[in-house]
């Protein structure tokens, strides 16, 4: 399996990349890790005329807390996230997800920016970003913009990014006392894309009342999906077993899975129900620690 011919361009700065992209037009694609894009090119599902390699751009690979935000550079690989002490200690939901994403060699190359920019509801990071209410920072021909995650995913492989926009950073509200998150996906075998996955992030106040909650779903809709009805039910409440039960039920009702090789629609709804409940419990447990 061999990709069709294309022209390769290496960008050494964000500016250069944007200039190249503006010049080459719609037939140009950025490549960061290339572990979503190149497989599609090998199968000739994607046949871009130009590839602009952004992986060599300096300064886009970092994980840090800055003000009240956790900031992750777009070129940070999933392996770098896996081994990062800050994430391990304060954002265990990241470890949950990365451990279940692809395999170690893929994670050595695949970037968080690419995982999100790909706009694929089967990828794991989008659900986490929804749950944690990330902002996506992008640079384009007309400057820098910050896109709330709820405005980011537009459709199947479609995002708010213009063709020449580069996703540069992910910003996530900093973990604080009383917050916690968890992610799990059911997969047919290790490394598989999710049959269904659920990311949950909760923030409790001192009395244990839920101040904020985010629930993102993986691969049970055409576009990465937030479980709005479930979140509303929990916000401002003390989260009880009954509420968790109800949210699981809502998740199974509101998700939009299709029957395929991974299972029937009914099975996937049931899986979403179960994982939603389990991840709510796990997130709560972590929030209460």
């Amino acid at each position, binding site marked *: 399996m061999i990709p069709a011919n*294309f*022209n390769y361009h290496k960008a050494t700065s964000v500016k250069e990349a944007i200039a190249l992209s503006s010049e080459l037009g719609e037939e140009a694609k950025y490549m960061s890790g290339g572990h979503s894009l190149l497989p599609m090119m090998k199968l000739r599902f994607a046949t871009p005329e130009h590839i602009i390699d952004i992986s060599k751009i300096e300064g886009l690979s970092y994980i840090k807390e800055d003000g009240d935000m956790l900031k992750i550079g777009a070129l940070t690989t999933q392996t770098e996230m896996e081994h990062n002490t800050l994430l391990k200690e304060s954002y265990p939901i990241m470890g949950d997800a990365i451990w279940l994403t692809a395999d*170690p060699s893929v994670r050595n190359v695949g970037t968080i920016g690419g995982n999100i920019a790909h706009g694929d509801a089967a990828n794991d990071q989008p659900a986490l970003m929804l749950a944690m209410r990330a902002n996506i920072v992008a640079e384009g021909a007309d400057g820098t913009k910050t896109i709330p995650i709820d405005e980011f995913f537009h459709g199947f492989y479609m995002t708010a990014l213009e063709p020449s926009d580069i996703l540069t950073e992910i910003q996530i509200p900093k973990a604080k006392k009383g917050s916690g998150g968890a992610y799990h996906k059911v997969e047919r075998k290790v490394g598989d894309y999710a049959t269904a996955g659920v990311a949950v992030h909760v923030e409790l106040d001192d009395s244990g009342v839920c101040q904020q909650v985010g629930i993102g779903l993986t691969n049970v809709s055409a576009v990465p999906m937030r479980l709005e009805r479930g979140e509303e039910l929990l916000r401002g409440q003390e989260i009880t077993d009954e509420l968790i039960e109800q949210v699981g039920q809502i998740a199974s009702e509101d998700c939009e899975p299709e029957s395929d090789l991974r299972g029937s629609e009914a099975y996937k709804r049931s899986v979403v129900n179960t994982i939603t409940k389990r991840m709510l419990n796990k997130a709560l447990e972590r929030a209460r620690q």
Partner: protein
Amino acid sequence: MAKHEVTMTINGQSVTAEVDSRLLLVHFIRENLDMTGTHIGCDTSNCGACTILLDGKSVKACTYLTVRADGAEITTIEGLAPEGTNHPLQQAFHDQHGLHCGFCTPGMIMRSVDLLKNNPNPTEEEIRWGISGNLCRCTGYNNIVKSVQQAAKEMAKEKEATV
């Protein structure tokens, strides 16, 4: 389509070549450099037969463009240990019968090098997850796990000896 000049270090030797944009690294290594120890077992980045070390990290060479490896340092199975000697992983795969047909073996070993670098003392579970991007159809994995365990012990000993 323009050709691109690339220079990289493969198994300690500097290599310069003119390549097409689309040339996959695995084909560059196998066909242009005639190092056929790195194998191909799938079209979808699932099998790991093509695993090499790129700047010290395990990478599936079938999912990497040669042009992007410009300036990189690459190690393939041929360069893991000096001619006529064994890396502790090679020795362990031999001792523990960690290979049958040998087709997955180079990739499996290169992946394990990276695994042990990040986790010098892995549990059986960590080894199994750690090699989960590499398929073996022959061995049933039991002895591959044992091989990695043996190598981990050996490498720990070696490390101690050098300290």
